[in-house]
């Protein structure tokens, strides 16, 4: 137990459990497996985006354009689907990945080739991508009846009792875990964020690594764009407005250090689940909608404070026999 609590992830699991117990005390049915599966499914998109974002944050960057990317890509595939209902859905999913990747690559290039600080570059592209969504759609919506049944069905169809959307999240988690822990690129994320100078000396190109992190985040945002649009069966310019901050908050709650180099896939997933559970539970336990914002703010602050405590160096302990 002590060991579990010593790790950030352990702490988060405990916090999540406490949260669930609290909710259950007011609304016991929340803990029903079916409901929990529903919460997970609802949080899937946040989890997916948090994983992409954590790759970026690990490299000591930040991607504020994810929500705008999601809106652009979502709108693009929705318009494609509306205009050419015959296009097979897998092709549209690929298109979403591709468009998202391209937008992510633009961020990456700005950061890599022009040395623009990530927060500035993505602050800029955030407004540009969102604006382009408006220009592309002319401000018009794409509605449920314009979308093909296949387009709408995919994320909802059940496999082994879980919707595809949940499976996509689970798969992304698995892939991210392999990427972060088992591949040179994943380790490079940690190296570049942990000590950029040292990374150069060890033959890791910081710029290129960041570029790939942004590409990853972009592609994931693109995929989330399709998932979002088909899930809510509507595409318009403002979808997911402000969601980038939720995504960053999920990462931060999950212990991904904003200073780079520290964090884990499990942390990001738990952070997203924590935030997702709260967002889901608040309407259910009938907390006044006006309290929701203050509550999530308080939770973010507490999470940061807790993580910072866990991160604090123990000192050097030169006096060996002092405890």
């Amino acid at each position, binding site marked *: 137990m002590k060991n579990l609590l010593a790790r950030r992830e352990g702490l988060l699991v405990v916090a999540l459990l406490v949260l669930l117990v609290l909710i259950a005390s007011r609304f016991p049915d929340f803990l029903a497996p079916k409901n929990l599966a529903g919460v997970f499914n609802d949080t899937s998109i946040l989890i997916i985006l948090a994983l992409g974002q954590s790759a970026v944050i690990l490299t000591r960057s*930040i991607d504020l354009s994810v929500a705008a990317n999601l809106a652009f890509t979502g709108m693009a595939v929705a318009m494609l689907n509306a205009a050419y209902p015959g296009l097979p859905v897998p092709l549209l999913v690929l298109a979403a990945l591709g468009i998202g990747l391209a937008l992510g690559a633009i961020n990456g290039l*700005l950061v890599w080739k*022009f*040395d*623009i*600080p990530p*927060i*500035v*570059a993505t*602050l*800029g*592209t*955030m*407004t*540009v991508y*969102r*604006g*382009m969504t*408006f*220009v592309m759609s002319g*401000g018009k919506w794409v509605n449920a009846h314009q979308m093909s049944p296949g387009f709408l069905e995919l994320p909802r169809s059940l496999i082994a009792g879980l919707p595809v959307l949940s499976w996509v999240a689970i798969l992304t988690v698995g892939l991210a875990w392999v990427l972060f822990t088992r591949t040179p690129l994943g380790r490079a994320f940690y190296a570049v964020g942990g000590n950029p100078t040292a990374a150069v000396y060890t033959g890791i190109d910081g710029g290129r690594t960041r570029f790939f992190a942004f590409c990853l985040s972009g592609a994931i945002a693109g995929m989330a764009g399709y998932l979002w649009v088909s899930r809510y069966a509507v595409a318009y*310019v403002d979808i997911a407005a*402000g969601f980038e*901050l939720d995504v*960053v*908050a999920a990462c*931060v709650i999950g212990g991904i250090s*904003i*200073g780079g180099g520290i964090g884990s896939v499990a942390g990001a997933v738990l952070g997203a689940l924590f935030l997702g559970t709260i967002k889901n539970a608040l309407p259910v336990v009938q907390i*006044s909608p*006006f*309290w*929701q*914002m*203050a*509550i*999530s*703010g*308080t*939770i*973010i*602050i507490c999470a*940061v*404070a807790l993580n*910072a405590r866990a991160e604090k160096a123990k000192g050097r302990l030169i006096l060996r026999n002092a405890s």
Partner: protein
Amino acid sequence: MSVARQIPDRLEASSVRLFKSWEALLLLVALVIFGVNSLVSPHFLDPWNLSDATFNFTEKATIAIAMAFLIIAGEIDLSVAAIIALASTAMGAAVQMGAGTETLVLIGLGVGLLCGAFNGLLVTRFQLPSIVVTIGTMSLFRGIAYIVLGDGVYKGYPADFAFFGQGYAWSYFSFELTFFFGVALIGGLVLHTTGFGRQVQAIGNSPLAARFSGVRVERVKFILFLMTGLAAGAASVMLTSRLGSTRPSIALGWELEVVTMAVLGGVSILGGSGTILGVVIAAFVMGLVTFGFGLMNVPGIVMSIFIGLMLIGVIALPILARRLHARIKGAR
């Protein structure tokens, strides 16, 4: 070699430095926009119109001055817009209790200070990264405004309270514009000619080394958060006065515009460098662009594309120019 030589103060004359500076580039951009606008729209050069146009940015720009200090010191405050909402809510509540104009202004500024102190405390005492802390307090402050006000509205501000957001200090110069110029002037003097300003720059370049040089890093940062809170409080007074009412959704999304203004003004987001003059010019550039586009009835979202591109472009341009310069030199 061992003969003692006189070390010069500077290598380049100040005129040369000025010419090469970011502010010069920005001023050029501002002039171009001004020129284009006056060519495209016959209404642009009207002094009253220009005066009206300044209302679009003075409140944000006032905060941007304080934000510039904070960013130069290597921190950021994303909660400024939420502070506006909370301060405005507090003023609204006070109006319901019959507070007069002076009290209202004090309350607005006071709540701003308190919020700034809360941010400052979290960042300096608990050593938390300001970007995340203020993402949190952004929800918290506005959240409190929602708790207090819910779907309601506060109005009935005293008539003379309208002066701060709607009144004129002198001829075409609104109170807001005059106040902004005052803040910018003081900010510029403090940043560029005082020991405090120097300490802020030192902290932004290396907080550790600044501490080892006797700078009270935490105290300076705390003061900067207070200043930013205070500026947000002042902006809240002006905005509330201009709107004549308060809802919790007031000033939604302003934080990013304020940061954009500072960054466009040449303040390095990585900390350590930046000038107040740059921020002032950037505020005017953004104001002129939105006003100019507004006159042509371009949808706001297209304006924001332009601002986004400008943000990236103005930062990438010097880098591109340097590269090109190096390439030309290399080819010779």
